[in-house]
């Protein structure tokens, strides 16, 4: 068996650099097991792609590493390894290799992996949260395989993400600064049990670390700024409007953008150059559409992972948006 060779892709290198602050952060928040999850995902995805290559064909693309990291970052920190493998094999083979490999996929492979797991193991994907290490817990997860919040939390049985805490109507929610830095803590009572507020999925705990990486790829022109601006602007505007109409059911824009996967999705997944819209006007529409769908799903549907489903839905309509934009421009030129 020959060693797996990688085809060098500069853009994908930048993506990995951009994601590294958030990865290091996640180790601090949840322990070294998180790194193992990411490694398992990277290995499985790479091997899956490699198995599909025919003789004499191009090497494995580095894009698969980015896909694998992004997939791992959307998972809860308690995810069993076999689920990671299952999701990765399914997603990479059906949403990437079946379409002909790198650059040909219509849907974002990382999100297909995750959506598949969401539907197959809904309980594990939405119910198994753990509290994250706080700044006062230093060295936190750096010294542990699996971060354990300590004896003073022993009385608590369940744990939730900030978004779930809001849906449950928790009396005290983490503050904006806490959410921004990733210093998330707090507890509330639900059905007579104490529920701890945790950090959510592996990659989404600290908005700051994602913001650093996100700005880096926008600055390096790896991510198209139109998609980012369009996504976040629409998100804030639509969320504010919704909050003014039904304040008891929807949090304000700042809370909802800092808690949850808006930063992870908005910077790293909406901007996927392959599966998003490819015309400039199309990009504005695409970003705005994903933001609106994300808020609708996040606020009203069964699943908490609104941004992820919204991006998949966006991917689905991206080609037809491009088609309509091109058609319109041609007609204007002709007229």
């Amino acid at each position, binding site marked *: 068996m020959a060693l797996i060779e990688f085809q060098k892709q500069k853009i994908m290198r930048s993506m990995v650099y951009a994601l590294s602050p958030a990865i290091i952060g996640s180790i601090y928040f949840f322990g070294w097991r998180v790194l193992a999850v990411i490694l398992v995902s990277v290995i499985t995805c790479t091997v899956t792609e490699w198995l*599909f290559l025919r003789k004499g064909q191009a090497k494995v693309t580095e894009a698969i590493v980015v896909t694998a990291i992004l997939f791992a970052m959307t998972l809860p920190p308690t995810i069993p390894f076999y689920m990671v493998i299952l999701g990765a094999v399914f997603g990479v083979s*059906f*949403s990437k*290799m*079946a*379409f*002909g*490999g790198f650059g*040909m996929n*219509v*849907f974002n492979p990382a999100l*297909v992996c995750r*959506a*598949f797991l*969401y*539907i197959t193991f809904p309980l594990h994907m939405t119910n198994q949260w753990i509290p994250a290490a706080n700044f006062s817990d230093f060295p936190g997860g750096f010294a542990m395989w699996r971060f354990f919040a300590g004896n003073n939390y022993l009385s608590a049985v369940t744990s939730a993400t900030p978004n779930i805490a809001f849906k449950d109507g928790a009396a005290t929610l983490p503050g904006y600064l806490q959410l921004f830095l990733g210093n998330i803590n707090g507890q509330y009572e639900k059905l007579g049990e104490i529920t701890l507020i945790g950090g959510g999925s592996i990659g989404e705990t600290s908005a700051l670390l994602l913001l650093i990486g996100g700005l880096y790829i926008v600055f390096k022109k790896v991510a198209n700024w139109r998609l980012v601006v369009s996504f976040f602007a629409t998100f804030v505007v639509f969320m504010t409007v919704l909050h003014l109409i039904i304040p008891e059911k929807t949090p304000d824009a700042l809370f909802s953008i800092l808690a949850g996967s808006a930063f992870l999705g908005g910077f790293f997944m909406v901007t996927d150059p392959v599966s998003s819209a490819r015309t400039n006007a199309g990009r504005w529409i695409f970003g705005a559409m994903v933001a609106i769908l994300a808020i*609708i*799903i996040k606020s*009203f*549907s*069964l*699943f908490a*992972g*609104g941004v*992820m*489903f*919204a991006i*998949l*839905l966006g*991917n*689905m*309509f*991206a*080609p*037809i*948006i*491009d*088609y309509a934009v091109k058609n319109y421009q041609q007609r204007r030129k002709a007229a």
Partner: protein
Amino acid sequence: MEGLSPWVIFFASIFTGNILLVYFLGMCSFLSVSKQVKTSLGLGLAVVFVLTITSALNYIVYYYILEPLNIEYLRYIAFIIVIASVVQLLEMIIERISETLYINLGIFLPLITVNCAILGVSLFMVIRKYTFIQSVLFGAGSGIGWMLAILAMAGIRARLNEQKIPPALRGPGIALIISGIMAMAFIGFSGIVQIQ
């Protein structure tokens, strides 16, 4: 289903209860006509038209003819007759308006008659006990949902590079995989509103 606002049903039938991607009705024409955006738009509009008209007509047929006579068990035949005649009418209209669209749609235009989405909507309307207005908006919404799905599919298929796809998956194979992933994405909407 007295309590639900017809508009809620309208939007729910487009998104949460998409007739194609949630109930998997009307797959055959979805898979075979989605190769070109223009033709799919034409067929999509035809389905919206037929669905809206037939759900209204079938409501009248069911509640004013079949039910008073106690012959509800004939509803399958009655519904299909109504659908077939509406499609016949539509065929004549399209032939007049656009010859190219008529040729492009080919056999699939008369086949709308046996498109299970159309009969499915009429039957759902009876099972879920919708009122008249609810039925019409449910029909229109289902049609628009079907059209959205086939348009997205046509756009995706236009972007695909058939040469790169593994030979065994070209054509219907990849189309089925795409519709599977599309259906997976639509699961995200589940739980927003229940309409059944």
